[in-house]
């Protein structure tokens, strides 16, 4: 998004959040689905709840929609306490994972369904439906029934129906999960476009990290009912606050050891007797002389046949495997310590022969700021 | 669903079933413990609430298991129970014998035929049960179509007596309950992956061996379901034995009917009903278990 740089209400202490969750807890009998969760989401945000299945992201969304009661804590939307307010009384609409299009109604009637149950005048309903059809480019399909639509068209009807009442907040439950990969990527951009046009606050639930990275202004990474980190996609990727987040988003190399030095921005990790400590940026949770983990993305690791003596961080290893992915090649290198580190290179030239193949001895190196030392 | 009408939604059918299913059943149980009397209603004791507590205890003290003792003493009853079980079991086996090949052939038929074949099996179920039983009277009687045909082709010289024998009852049950056998077997066979048979043949089975080693075990849940669906209603059958069976065809449904309508012995009829239910509990529980396992 072009204005991501300027749009950052979460950094503005004056900004009032649209949604505010305070110590929200959800229990099902013995099982705790959400544990004392606190979170602010601001107007016009495209907010992603990301996590593995069972992490509580869907439960949180269903509480926002009014489909689940809160066991403890408080949710306010636009300053109003949501406790006991049923879904039909909330200025919140939801796009369901299964789309939940009414099979017995036409596209037109599906879009008008919510409007007919609002205080909108009858003659305005038609205009609004037409406007929504135009927004998702389905004018020609107004008279069709859901089963006469393709997967992508159904997805757009579901989106338009949820937006028709002009909700303050739109909840999207795995909105692109049913589409194939190509269509999904294309639809992600449409989704962002529509979000920007309507200015509605979107909260999306997804388990697909690429999708969250693409569409969201901020991402909340969840695990076992808690939020592990809330941040912009860039910071989630480059400055994860835990090994869990680093590992969940993208590929990462992890080397465990003890934090041997910590001064300001930089840290060193001792990872074995007689090995040169790894020098890296100090990350969250790193404490001097405590156990820590060094994390680095494969694309930040350089591979060479000669020793790069100009770099502090350099290790020797043997190529164990090469994965050719077309645009990239990933080299899996077994270090003398037994750790397996992957290095990724862009294939910027066709059939580039790097002269590196299986069983070759190689040097891996990275700059002093390429990786992070995190608490472990 | 949080319907505000939830109490009505649950309460109305609940109340209806309590009043018209459970209460009547309690009455049957109570009368089965009473004694027959020449009165209206033709049994004693009758609960008289106006007598208060004494009336209730007096009423309860007059109930006894005499009718059940009677059922064990008169060999008509236990013979009727045994004979019902035997007739139901034999008919079930015969229905399986007719139904399995039919279900198998339907499942093997070209896919575009199957809905029509299925409809042909279900269609008789919608037509009157009574009429389907009645149709066999004309076929099985001494001068009926079957005897005419058999004598016509010279297979027999004198007409066979089939009507009013147990054989006619078997035929009637097989005929009327055939869809209940065919449908569950067809459902399991139709679901079966055709490549399983190919795999069996690939591994060295002949067609016939593949049938016994793969098809038969896989169709078991359907076969068991079908057998219970025939056996359970056949056990309490009344119409078929009374139209096609003879005077020596003993089935408990018929005995109950006669006890009630001809002898007007309501307490014994009620006891007969209770015992029949107790006998039915066994196959019903087994059936339930089979359904849960295959689900």
């Amino acid at each position, binding site marked *: 998004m072009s204005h991501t740089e300027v749009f950052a209400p979460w950094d503005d202490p004056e900004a009032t959040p649209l949604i505010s969750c305070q110590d929200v807890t959800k229990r099902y009998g013995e099982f705790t689905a959400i544990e004392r969760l606190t979170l602010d989401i601001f107007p016009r945000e495209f907010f992603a709840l990301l996590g593995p299945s069972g992490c509580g992201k869907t439960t949180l969304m269903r509480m926002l929609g009014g489909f689940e009661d809160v066991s403890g804590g408080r949710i306010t939307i636009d300053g109003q306490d949501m406790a006991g307010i049923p879904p039909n009384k909330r200025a919140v609409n939801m796009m369901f994972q299964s789309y939940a299009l009414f099979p017995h109604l036409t596209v037109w009637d599906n879009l008008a369904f919510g409007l007919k149950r609002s205080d909108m005048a009858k003659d305005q309903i038609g205009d609004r439906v037409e406007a929504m059809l135009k927004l998702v480019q389905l004018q020609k399909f107004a008279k069709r029934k859901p089963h006469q639509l393709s997967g992508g068209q159904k997805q757009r009807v579901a989106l338009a129906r949820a937006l028709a009442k002009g909700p303050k907040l739109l909840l999207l439950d795995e909105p692109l999960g049913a589409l194939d990969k190509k269509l999904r990527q294309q639809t992600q951009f449409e989704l962002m476009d529509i979000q920007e046009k309507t200015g509605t606050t979107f909260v999306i639930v997804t388990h697909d990290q690429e999708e969250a990275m693409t569409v969201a202004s901020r991402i909340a990474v969840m695990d076992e009912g808690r939020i592990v980190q809330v941040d912009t996609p860039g910071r989630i990727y480059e400055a994860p606050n835990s090994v869990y987040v680093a590992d969940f988003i993208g590929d990462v190399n992890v080397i465990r050891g003890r934090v041997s030095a910590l001064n300001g921005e930089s840290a060193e990790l001792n990872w074995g007797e007689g090995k040169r400590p790894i020098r890296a940026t100090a990350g969250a949770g790193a404490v001097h002389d405590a156990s820590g983990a060094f994390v680095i993305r494969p694309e930040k690791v350089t591979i060479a046949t000669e020793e790069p003596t100009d770099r502090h961080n350099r290790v020797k290893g043997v190529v164990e495997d090469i994965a050719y992915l077309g645009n990239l090649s990933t080299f899996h290198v077994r270090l003398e310590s037994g750790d397996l580190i992957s290095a990724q290179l862009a294939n910027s030239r066709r059939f580039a022969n790097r002269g590196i193949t299986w069983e070759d001895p190689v040097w891996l190196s990275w700059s002093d700021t390429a990786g992070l030392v995190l608490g472990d | 669903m949080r319907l505000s009408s939830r109490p009505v939604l649950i309460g*109305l059918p609940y109340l209806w079933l309590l009043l018209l299913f459970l209460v009547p059943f309690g009455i049957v149980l109570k009368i089965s413990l009473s004694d027959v009397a020449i009165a209206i209603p033709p049994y004693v004791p009758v609960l008289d609430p106006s007598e208060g507590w004494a009336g209730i205890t007096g009423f309860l003290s007059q109930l006894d298991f005499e009718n059940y003792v009677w059922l064990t003493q008169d060999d008509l009853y236990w013979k009727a129970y045994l004979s019902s079980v035997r007739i139901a079991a034999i008919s079930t086996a015969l229905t399986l014998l007719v139904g399995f090949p039919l279900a198998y052939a339907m499942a093997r038929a070209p896919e575009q035929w199957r809905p029509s074949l299925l409809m042909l099996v279900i269609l008789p179920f919608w037509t009157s049960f009574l009429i389907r039983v009645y149709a066999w009277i*004309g076929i099985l009687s001494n001068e009926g179509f079957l005897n005419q045909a058999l004598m016509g082709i010279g297979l027999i010289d004198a007409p066979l007596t089939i009507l009013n024998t147990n054989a006619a009852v078997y035929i009637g049950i097989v005929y009327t309950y055939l869809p209940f056998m065919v449908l569950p077997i067809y459902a399991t066979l139709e679901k079966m992956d055709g490549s399983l048979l190919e795999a069996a043949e690939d591994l060295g089975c002949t067609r016939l061996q593949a049938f016994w080693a793969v098809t038969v075990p896989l169709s078991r849940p359907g076969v068991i379901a079908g057998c219970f669906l025939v056996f359970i209603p056949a056990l309490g059958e009344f119409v078929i034995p009374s139209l096609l069976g003879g005077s020596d065809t003993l089935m408990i449904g018929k005995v109950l009917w006669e006890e009630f309508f001809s002898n007007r012995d309501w307490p014994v009829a009620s006891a007969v009903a209770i015992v029949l239910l107790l006998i039915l509990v066994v196959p019903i529980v087994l059936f339930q278990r089979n359904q849960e396992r295959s689900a």
Partner: protein
Amino acid sequence: MRRLSAFNVVSLTFGFAFLYIPMLILVVYSFNASRLVTVWGGFSTRWYGELVRNEAFLEAAWVTLKVGLISSTIATVLGTMAAIAMVRGGRFMGRTLFSGMIYAPLVMPEVITGLSLLLLFISIGLERGVMTIVLAHATFSMCYVSVVVSSRLASFDVSLEEAARDLGCTGWDAFRSVTLPIIAPAVVSGWLLAFTLSLDDLVIASFTAGPAATTLPIRIFSSVRLGVSPEINALSTIIIALVATGVIAASLTTKRAILRRQAEERAAA
């Protein structure tokens, strides 16, 4: 296309011959001029004429129709409610008893159902007649309706109802405008099943009818106990024709609807 083996062809031929020849004979001999039901005496529609003039049969047919229409309608309302209570009602007191009472009548021998209801009607002093048959039929067929509707409800996507509430419906409004139209076909088949069961029932009606009301099955039963009669053949033919027309028409309509739907889905994908 795979060809059917000889064995399968024989199975199909024999199976369907067994199912249909008895009914075919009934139909053919209903046009027999002779009173001797197993001897062909030439074509005639005479027995249909006699049937139409037989007031006892007409009266019984009218009673049967009345009982069928009223009882199946009651059964459909109650059975649908029971199905919703079972599938969507959550927990409530006596739920196990409730589901037991819904499934028990399905396996209960008719003689017992009939006997127990008769004893109830007598003990509360209800005069037997059309009303008691209606009560009896509604009771056992509501259980069938409930089974048909609850199997449809169980596969019903709950998020459709949630979507309706999300878009501003109250619980009842969501049920009426979304759930009900979608399960309507199951409710209609439940009604048809209840109606057929009521038309067909002899045993329960015999117990609960009393001398005041006679249904068609009771009338047929008392006359066929004495043997085969050409008038009953004619009546059977009419019933078979009506049912066959209805079932075939219904299945053709559904089949066409399914085919059209499939074609549309293929076109859309």
